[in-house]
């Protein structure tokens, strides 16, 4: 499914990158722990998080995530949004809580990512 469809499912608003609504998303993962995201993140991941500092954008850039969805209506500050624009990472925000947002996407057919002992 694409980012625009995901936004509709989560009743999410684009903070930036609305022009990327047709980007196809293959997998998603939810975490507030950026070290976990760095450990399990795969290129192309859709990251759902309740953390809204600039490190979420940097982490998404490092793992080559396709977009970030902030849950519980959170949004990063201007520096975070600026960095996301610079890196071409769309940001969205939904009022839903993490569990509900992940559950809705999963039941809509969006796969999760799985941890492997060896990611090399």
């Amino acid at each position: 499914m694409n980012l625009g469809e995901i936004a509709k499912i989560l009743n999410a608003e684009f903070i930036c990158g609305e022009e990327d609504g047709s980007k196809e998303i293959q997998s998603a993962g939810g975490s507030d722990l950026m070290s976990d995201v760095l450990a399990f993140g795969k290129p192309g991941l859709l990251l759902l998080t309740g953390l809204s500092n600039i490190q979420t954008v940097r982490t998404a850039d490092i793992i080559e995530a396709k977009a970030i969805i902030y849950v519980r209506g959170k949004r990063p500050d201007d520096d975070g949004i600026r960095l996301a624009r610079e890196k071409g990472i769309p940001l969205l925000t939904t009022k839903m809580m993490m569990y509900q947002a992940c559950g809705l996407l999963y039941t809509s057919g969006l796969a999760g990512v799985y941890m492997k002992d060896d990611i090399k």
Partner: protein
Amino acid sequence: MFFQNSALSESFEIKGGDFNRAGSVSTKIKETLQDIGIDSNIIRRAAIASYEAEMNVVMYARKADFTLTLTLASILIIVKDEGKGITDIEAAMQEGYSTATTEMREMGFGAGMGLPNIKRNADDFKITSVPGKGTVLEILIYLN
């Protein structure tokens, strides 16, 4: 022997406690490696290891010298910090072991995953530390 056939070397200074800029060196070296045309999977591993190392400096040290050395065969990242050092390296290498404060955890880090994440992404990883002085990380990733 890491320094033979050096093709490129870049150095940066990382400041402890500077949470807003934390990660910017890793973003920069990722761009450098992309410009050179290094394989994207290798860049990801280098960027993840570098980012975790950078966060460790920001969280625990006063400052650090960060050096990226690219040779025809490998990427070497050396992070040499001035700080309180690590008393028990073996414990620090265990997933979940952490001495982080609540503030660090609220940043999404400090869960005891940093050093294991670095090791997982490196082909060779060396850590030495002198309590009260600082820690040196050597992260080596082969290009082939």
